[in-house]
């Protein structure tokens, strides 16, 4: 957080059918609908998040991710980061306050992998859902499905990872927590953090720009991941792989798809990161184990099925 970027704040996901998508993200994932806007977008949050929304769904004829937003500590930091981006040669776009309801102004930019990101300082503070901020109970009653705890990170596929690294690390103050290097020493995957989490955003090399691999939501325990797997079967939801463990980050995970083909992850555990930690390296030759620690073999879908 050395430059004031605090955490992932939101992700806007394109869906083919809003009704199906809302049912998936609320009934199955357990997010809570908090608002809708006149563009037809639906705003959702996970129960432990303090701001009004973290997931925005937009109906479109092509699924994928419109942008991911990071919250920064205050307006002064936002101003400085905006200046730093411009000085670095990154083109920034001003998105006015209230373009997303109850969210302050956003500074949007597209990195060379083709993905759009945003920084913002203000969003309506609604507090954790269903629990008080005074003498709070352990968890709220009435949660649905997987009872997702928070929107945690996203993984994007695209080219120009070195240029993306420069912006996130040198301009925005992220740290490289883990990487995959090929035999020539080229970084083909980078897991970046701005917190103690093992990643807040990640990129894997892919020739086509701007592809969305998954949005990930945190669960408390391995038991909760198994229960998520049960729910995926009960609802006949399209599964990708899991439950299993990653080598990278060592998180325990399951992957599945929303009704428009966007991949979701729920996971628990995972390593931690402090600024004095050196990056962990996985060899591309051992990518199977790096991604799926138990099978030690990649399923082809993980690398090629994207929105």
């Amino acid at each position, binding site marked *: 957080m050395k430059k004031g970027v605090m955490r992932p704040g939101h992700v806007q996901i394109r869906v*083919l*059918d809003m009704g199906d998508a809302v049912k998936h993200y609320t009934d199955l994932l357990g997010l809570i609908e908090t608002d809708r806007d006149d563009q037809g977008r639906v705003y959702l949050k996970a129960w432990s998040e303090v701001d009004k929304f973290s997931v925005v769904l937009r109906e479109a*004829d*092509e*699924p*994928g991710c419109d942008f991911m937003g990071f919250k920064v500590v205050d307006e002064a930091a936002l101003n400085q980061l905006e200046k730093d981006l411009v000085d670095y040669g990154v083109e920034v776009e001003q998105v006015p306050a209230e373009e997303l309801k109850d969210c302050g102004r956003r500074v949007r930019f597209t990195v060379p992998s083709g993905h759009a990101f945003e920084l913002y300082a203000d969003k309506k503070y609604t507090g954790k859902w269903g629990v008080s901020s005074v003498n709070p109970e352990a968890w709220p009653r009435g949660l649905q499905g997987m009872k997702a705890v928070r929107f945690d990170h996203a993984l994007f596929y695209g080219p120009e990872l070195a240029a993306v690294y420069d912006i996130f690390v040198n301009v925005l103050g992220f740290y490289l927590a883990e990487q*995959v290097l*090929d035999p020539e020493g080229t970084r*083909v*995957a980078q897991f970046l953090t701005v917190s103690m989490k093992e990643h807040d955003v990640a990129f*894997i*090399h*892919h*020739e*086509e720009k701007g592809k969305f691999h998954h949005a990930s939501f945190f669960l408390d325990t391995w038991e909760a991941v198994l229960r998520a797997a049960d729910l995926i079967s009960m609802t006949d939801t*399209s599964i990708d792989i899991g439950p299993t463990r990653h080598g990278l980050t060592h998180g325990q995970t399951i992957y599945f*798809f*929303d*009704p*428009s*083909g*966007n*991949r979701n992850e729920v996971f628990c555990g995972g390593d931690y990161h402090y600024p004095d930690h050196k990056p962990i390296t996985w060899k*591309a030759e051992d*990518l199977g184990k790096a991604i799926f620690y138990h099978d030690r073999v*990649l399923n*082809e*879908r993980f*690398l*090629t*099925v*994207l*929105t």
Partner: protein
Amino acid sequence: MAEFQVFNRTTGDHFICQEGQSVLKAMEQLGMKCVPVGCRGGGCGFCKIRVLEGDFECGKMSKVHAPPDAVEKGEVLACRIYPLTDLTIECVPLPEAALAKQTTTKPLR
């Protein structure tokens, strides 16, 4: 409930698809692999096929992978089509880049 025969001309496979069931789901339930399986949600384009004969209904598909002019020619995603009659289909080759990824051990490059 009506059921329909699906014949994959590319692979020579036949399978039964129930009324209201997608072609891809019917194939997967029978343990067959004659069409590539991706997201199963009309989003990724992995299960693209060409319908040569027969009628079907279409669910929502990404316009990138199933643009209207291709759908007119019967190029659709198997996860999002529901037969109304027996169908004859063929596989549509994946783009070269995707095929390379399927067969190489260095898929991240």
